[in-house]
Every structure is written in structure tokens, then in C-alpha cells.
């Protein structure tokens, strides 16, 4: 039969096409095609190093903080700047707020509808719904009113964002009452992600696209009033993550345990690490850098081992196999041809291997590096799901989903600490927030993490201007096209082996795509 195509993949950032070959109800081959080329790296050539902070963050409207920070770190590397401690804490808080914003938005707004059948929620018994919420330890809402709201909406016949939905598909497994709880939190999550973004708006002017993490430190000064605002919004987000998102995850997971048996992908994991500690040593980041490849051990991550291939993407074919520090990006569109070129996404490889990046990679690296808090969170969750001592089951579709939510729980704990740390530093009279540099030459790299995975910005500065700029985004790693040897990228590999009950509505494939948070 003809390949099953999802184009456009919806509920993602940007444009993606996924094509899978299905034999006897199982995916046997897959292709991921990035649909958009804008040329940011070319636009930045010749501009002022500090301008990269403002422009490069506009790669991604969901993760502008991470791109902004990576661009600023690249400039600081090139111009040999060491930022003040206050700036470090402030950036951690802003970065953490973005991660919480992103993870909440991803779980409820972007992927929940792959598991939660909104129409089924109409059949829920309201008393049973409250009983179930209590049993699951998840927060309640006015379930009756929400059910009426959905009912009125469905009966009106104008389905708005639910037009042409796939509800009723045999792969939806939740009972009506759990669907109703999830719908209630789906609606509430839209407010919570906005609360998290308000933390960024206070400290960065607005979200998306923030203003304050300039190369040299920060342009934001904490005042009592502003810190109070940060704390207020943070507490709302913390409560939701702890009392709705985590219990919901644990309540929903048992209905989809088959998702631990597929969706693993390449089984190689890369993290650059994120959230600096006081030493500014990348190895001591709250989520540390590392590489896992084939076994349950962590090796150091070395950016020199990256090469980007373009044999299957629409770029000048001779400019392949380059390290990003010397990388080139010149578009050369041919045609959509699965045997030749089929994507705007390059194929980065680490030590010649495709690497999965994202919360699962970060949490596995932290877990295997012996991070006590991460170990406690993961081991506790595995025990609750009846898989104590088996972290390898996280290497699956369900594991990738769970890892993101568990990471949110870890970050909630860190955020509280950082806010306290900042208040203490200011009280002790540390008034340094910004340092200047007079350097005009140098090379720098911002190796960091976006919520969706490892992110690298490389900048060369000559004569005070950007001479070369390269970015390898998390989606470049995860949505990678095949490489020179024809080896599939992480998403492509994760799709192979997935069951497809209805080729007209490949819901299971959509779940796998969304699990990477493209």
C-alpha cells in the first residue's frame, strides 16, 4: 500500500511532514521532513555579536529563552566574558520558567489530545469523576460545568479547534471520567502556561521573545515588588505541576503501558546540560551534560565529535560532514524525493551516530550520573508503575512522555531554591549584574538545552562582527533526515515498529512524533 502521510503534523512548533510505510498494521520504515527554511545563520553574518541574542531567539517562539541564552553564551565565549553570579541566578530562573511553561503546554495543549478523547468525556458520571480524582490524588474542578460547556459546544455543531478530529479511534483507552478530568486540566493548563510566561515577562519584559539576558549579564534588576510577582506566579505553576500534572501522568500511564514496548528509537542520548551552578562549570549543571550510547553508562559530551550531513536535505551537497564550528548553510532545493533529498533538516551525528535529545536524554544522563534528586524522582515513579529497578523501560514512547513531566517536577524544586538564592544575594548587597568586554575577536559556543533538547549556537567574531554563525537545534537532532550512510534519524527510527490500527488516522504515529515535542 501507499505510504501513510501526516502533513502537516499539527500541535508542534513549525512545519513537519511524516511519512511511514505500514505493513500488516506495523510501521516498517519512516521519513521525517522538515518543511521550513528561513536562513537565520546567514542573516546573522556581519552583525554585532550582541544582536545575535535578539535575533537568534526568534528561531523558536516556544523556546526563545534557550536560543537567546545560547546566543548570548556564544557571544560571551567569543568575547571572553564571565557573567556575575546574580546574572547566573536570574538566567536560571528565566530558563526554568520557560521549561515549566513549555512542558505544561506540551503535555496538555500539544499531546494530551492524542490520549484523551474529549467527546468521551461527555459520558462521564460527575460523582464518579470526583471519586476518581480523589483516588488519583489529582486536583478537582467544576467537572459538571466543564462537561456542560463541552456539551453545548459539541451540540452547536461548530467544532472550532476540534474540527475533523480523530476522537473515537480504537487507540483511545481512558474511561470517560478520566477523560473529563484531563479535559478540565487541559483548559486549566492554558492559564498555567501563561502564569509561567508571566515570570519571564516580569524578568524579561515579555514572552515570547525576551529582552534582558544581554552578553555580559542581565539588564534586569530585582526589586522587592518584582520578586514578589515572580514568587506569586511561580507558586501557582508549582501547585499545578505537583497536584495535577504529575498525578494525571500517573493516572493515565497504566492505560497505555503498551507504549513501553515501542517508540524507543536510536537508543543514543545526548545532553549539553542546563542550569548553571555557582561554579559555572558545565559538568556541575543542575542537569549535567553527557552522552549515553548503547549501554547504561554516561560519557563526556564533546562538541568536536559532531558532524552535520546534508545528503538527504536541501543544501549544497559538497558542504557535508562539517563540524558546526566550521559549518555552512546554503540552500539547494531539488525535489521531494525519499531516495535523494526530502527535508530542510540536516543530519547531525555525534561520533557518527544519531542522537536523541530532550528531557529523556537529560533525565537519563542525570540519573546515570548519580544526581540524587533525579534518582529519587525516577526510582519513585518506576516503583509506582510496577517497574522498580528497570530504568531501561524509560527508553520508549511512554518513557519519553513521562520523562518530560518528571523533569518539570525536578525543575519546580530547583526554581524555588534559585528564587531564594537570588533574594539572599540581593540582601547581602551583591549589586553586580553586568560586565563589559572590549574584545573584538574570538570563537564561542553556547552549548545549552531548550525544553525539547540539546541546543548549540556557534559564533565566530572578527573585527567586532559576526564572521560565522551556526545553530544545531534539538529538532535538528531529533527530526534529522537520514545521514550519508542512509541511517535514520531518531524520530524516523522511533516510528519503526509502531502499531497503526487505522492507516487513515495514524494516531499512534502522531503520538510518537509528539513525544519528541518537535
Amino acid at each position, binding site marked *: 500500500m501507499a505510504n501513510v502521510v501526516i502533513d502537516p503534523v499539527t500541535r508542534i512548533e513549525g512545519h513537519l511532514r511524516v511519512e511511514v510505510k505500514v505493513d500488516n498494521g506495523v510501521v516498517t520504515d519512516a521519513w521525517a521532513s522538515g518543511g521550513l527554511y528561513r*536562513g537565520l545563520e546567514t542573516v546573522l553574518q556581519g552583525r554585532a555579536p550582541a544582536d545575535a541574542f535578539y535575533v537568534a531567539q526568534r528561531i523558536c517562539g*516556544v523556546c526563545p529563552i534557550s536560543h537567546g541564552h545560547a546566543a548570548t553564551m556564544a557571544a560571551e565565549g567569543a568575547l571572553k566574558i564571565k557573567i556575575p553570579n546574580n546574572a547566573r541566578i536570574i538566567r536560571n530562573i528565566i530558563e526554568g520558567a520557560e521549561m515549566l511553561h513549555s512542558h505544561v503546554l506540551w503535555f496538555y495543549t500539544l499531546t494530551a489530545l492524542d490520549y484523551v478523547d474529549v467527546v468521551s468525556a461527555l459520558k462521564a458520571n460527575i460523582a464518579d469523576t470526583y471519586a476518581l480524582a480523589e483516588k488519583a490524588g489529582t486536583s478537582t474542578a467544576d467537572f459538571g460545568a466543564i462537561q456542560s460547556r463541552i456539551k453545548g459546544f459539541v451540540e452547536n455543531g461548530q467544532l*472550532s479547534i476540534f474540527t475533523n478530529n480523530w476522537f473515537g479511534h480504537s487507540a483511545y483507552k481512558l474511561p470517560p471520567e478520566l477523560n473529563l478530568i484531563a479535559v478540565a486540566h487541559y483548559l486549566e493548563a492554558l492559564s498555567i502556561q501563561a502564569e509561567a510566561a508571566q515570570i519571564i515577562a*516580569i524578568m524579561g519584559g515579555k514572552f515570547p521573545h525576551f529582552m534582558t539576558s544581554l552578553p555580559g549579564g542581565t539588564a534586569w534588576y530585582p526589586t522587592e515588588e518584582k520578586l514578589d510577582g515572580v514568587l506569586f506566579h511561580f507558586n501557582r505553576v508549582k501547585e499545578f505541576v505537583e497536584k495535577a500534572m504529575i498525578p494525571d501522568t500517573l493516572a493515565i500511564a497504566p492505560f497505555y503501558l503498551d507504549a513501553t514496548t515501542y517508540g524507543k528509537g536510536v537508543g543514543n542520548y545526548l545532553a549539553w546540560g542546563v542550569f548553571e551552578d555557582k561554579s559555572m562549570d558545565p559538568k556541575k549543571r543542575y542537569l549535567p551534560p553527557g552522552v549515553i550510547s548503547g549501554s547504561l553508562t554516561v560519557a563526556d559530551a564533546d562538541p568536536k565529535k559532531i558532524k552535520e550531513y546534508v545528503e538527504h536535505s536541501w543544501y549544497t551537497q559538497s558542504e557535508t560532514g562539517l563540524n558546526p564550528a566550521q559549518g555552512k548553510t546554503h540552500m539547494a532545493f531539488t525535489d521531494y524525493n525519499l531516495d535523494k533529498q526530502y527535508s530542510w533538516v540536516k543530519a547531525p551525528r555525534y561520533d557518527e551516530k544519531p542522537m536523541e535529545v530532550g528531557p529523556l536524554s537529560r533525565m537519563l544522563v542525570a540519573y546515570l550520573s548519580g544526581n540524587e534528586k533525579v534518582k529519587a524522582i525516577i526510582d519513585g515513579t518506576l516503583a509506582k508503575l510496577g517497574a522498580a529497578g528497570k530504568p531501561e523501560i524509560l527508553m520508549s514512547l511512554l518513557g519519553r512522555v513521562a520523562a518530560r513531566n518528571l523533569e518539570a517536577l525536578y525543575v519546580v524544586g530547583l526554581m524555588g531554591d534559585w528564587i531564594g538564592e537570588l533574594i539572599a544575594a540581593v540582601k547581602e548587597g551583591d549589586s553586580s549584574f553586568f560586565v563589559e568586554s572590549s574584545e573584538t575577536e574570538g570563537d564561542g559556543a553556547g552549548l545549552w538545552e531548550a525544553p525539547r533538547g540539546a541546543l548549540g549556537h556557534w559564533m565566530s567574531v572578527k573585527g567586532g562582527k559576526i564572521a560565522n554563525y551556526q545553530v544545531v537545534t534539538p529538532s535538528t537532532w531529533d527530526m534529522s533526515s537520514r545521514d550519508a550512510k542512509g541511517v535514520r534519524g531518531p524520530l524516523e527510527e522511533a516510528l519503526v515498529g509502531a502499531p497503526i490500527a487505522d492507516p487513515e488516522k495514524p494516531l499512534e504515529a502522531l503520538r510518537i512524533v509528539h513525544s519528541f515535542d518537535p
Partner: protein
Amino acid sequence: MAQDARGEVYDLLAARGVSRRDFLKYCGSVAALLGLSEMYAPQIAAAVESGAKLKPVLWIAQGLCTGCTESMAQSRTPDVPTVVLDILSVNYWETVMASAGSDALKAITETVDKGGYILIVEGSIMNGANGNTLRVGGRPGREDVKEAAKNADAIIAVGSCAVDGGWVKAAPNPAGATGVSEYLASVGISKPIINLPTCPVNPEWIVAMIVDVLLVGKLPALDSKGRPTLIYGSTIHDNCPRRGHFENGEFVEKFGTVEEKKQFCLYKVGCKGPQTYTNCPYVRWNDRVSWCVESGSPCIGCGNFNWVDNDAPFLTRTSNVKLPGIGGVAPSTVGAVLGGAAAVALGVHAVVSGTQGRVGKGGPPETEKAYDRKKAAKGGDK
């Protein structure tokens, strides 16, 4: 007769758990946004509720970062569920819609065939490689905009990318980006377009425009560039809370200084407020918690046309506003900073940055503002 339709809508809203009070509160905030008295709230409510049918919307994504959708998701009054469930029927919106693939695309065709919808476009139109720098559904993405523009009641270009190509079009415009107006004109579709520049768009402006279309049934007053005059009628500088420091000659000369901490004027570290026309200082961002200048950063002029080329380098003064003090402010306060030599140096710097320091053609330094000229003629601030 309107009463019947209204009753029907009230029932509908009530069934959805939206109280009459909540709804009027929301309409009141929209009235304020439109520059109307809250007394207009009932009229706005009546307009929104003018039939039992929700106004269909197609939100089409082009060469974007999804930041304008994200920004829309930050709207709190009304919140997103109210917008997508109770006010509008958003039949196509890639980032939030349940459907996927060809089933999703079908919603565009079905809505276009019925007509009577609002088209919102986010992101640059991508023309490079014959339109293949953006591919959606196996063809150039711009085709969706062309198709959806045909029968639209109103077209809103949200964010700088949709307005004129935004940063994607910045020199050397590697992927062939342009704005919606220019693209539609090039394919022979001539329709008025509401342009809402800034990067990203402010969600309150989108809500205001949608309500305007529903309320008066026609486009709001637009300037020659398609921008609603209510939103883009005055500069950030004119309404800036730090304007007093500008008048007093109190500037941040460098980051990390005591002047920065005192929240002095950011003009000399590159603020583009004097040449940027938006109402950011009072509509603010993220449910009004803050905005760029309040956070400590100079405005980077993201609401300007071709903003990345015209406003960069962002931390360098590129406009040429008449500085206060020249006309006779007490020398003891500003003389040291703005004495003859310093003023000349600033002038030279502006010329240099206009010719050497920029990528692309760059914009001319802004000429002296009429307001400042008049004031200087009168002898400045006395």
C-alpha cells in the same frame, strides 16, 4: 428581533458555563482596548452575540517561529478557551487543533467554500526555491494563504513576519521572505489587510481587531501602511514612563551602572522608542505585567518595518532625536554629558553607524521630531 438572537446566544454561553457577568467584563476590557468607554460593553456583547453562530477563523502558519500563536496563548482577558470555544470557531490553527494531516487541511477548504470568515496569517510568506522554502501538504505553503484569502471577510497579518517578512526578510533575505500584503498583491488579490507588526504580536491587539470586525462589521481606521491608528498612532517615546528622564537629560550610558539601576532613559544604549509606533507602554505584555523598557532593555523597534535591518545594531543609537539640553537646560545637570564635544561625538557616531556598522541597506537616522524642534525653538525646557 435582535433580542431573540441574543437570548439564544445567552443560552449558549450559559450552557458553556460562561456567566453573563464574565462575558460583560470581558467586553468591557475589549472596549477599553478599542479606546471606548466601558459603557460600550453591552454593544460589544451584542455584536459578538449577533447570532447563534460563532465567527469562523482560519489561522494559517507560514514562515514562522510560532511566537505569535504563543503570544495569543498568553491572552488572559479573555483567555484562550473563551476565544476558541465561545467567541470564535477557529477551524484551522495548526498549533492547537486536534486534527492532523489531510483531515486538518480539509478544514481550510470547507471553511473557504462557506465564506464569511476571518483569515489570520502568522509568519513570512516564503518565496525562495519557487515557494518551496516552506512546504505544507506537499506544496508551497503560500498556496494556503492564496486560497484562504479569496473569500475572507477580513485578513489580519499578525506579527512583523506576516506584515513585511520580519527578521526572516532581513538582509540578505536568504529564503525569499515577504509579507502578506505584498504577496497577495503579486498574485492579483487586492483586499485590505490589517497589519499588526511587532515581534511577536501583542494578543490584545488581535482580540481588539476581531471584536472591531464583529462590532462594526468593517475594518478599523488604518494608516497608509495598513496599521490600526488606535494602536500605532504614537511613538513609544511619547508614552514612555522614562520620558521624564529623557527630558532631564538623565541617561543610561552603559549597562551595569547606577544610572541603569535608577531606571534612567535608555536612549543612549540604543532605545528605538523614538522611532517606533506602538502602544506598548500602556497595553504592555503578558496580561500587562511588564514590557521591554520596564524590564531594563532598550526598545529594539520590533514594530518597525524591516526592523532587523533598520534598527540594528540594537544596542547602538541609530536614530537622531534632538537631545534635550542643547536649548538651555541647567548646565549643572546635563552640561557635562551633553556639552558641545559630546553632542558632536554623538552626531558623528550616528553617521558612522549608518554607513559602516550595519548589514543591509539600513534605515536613515530619524530626523528631528517636530515636537523637539518646537521645544528647542522655544528655548527647551526651562
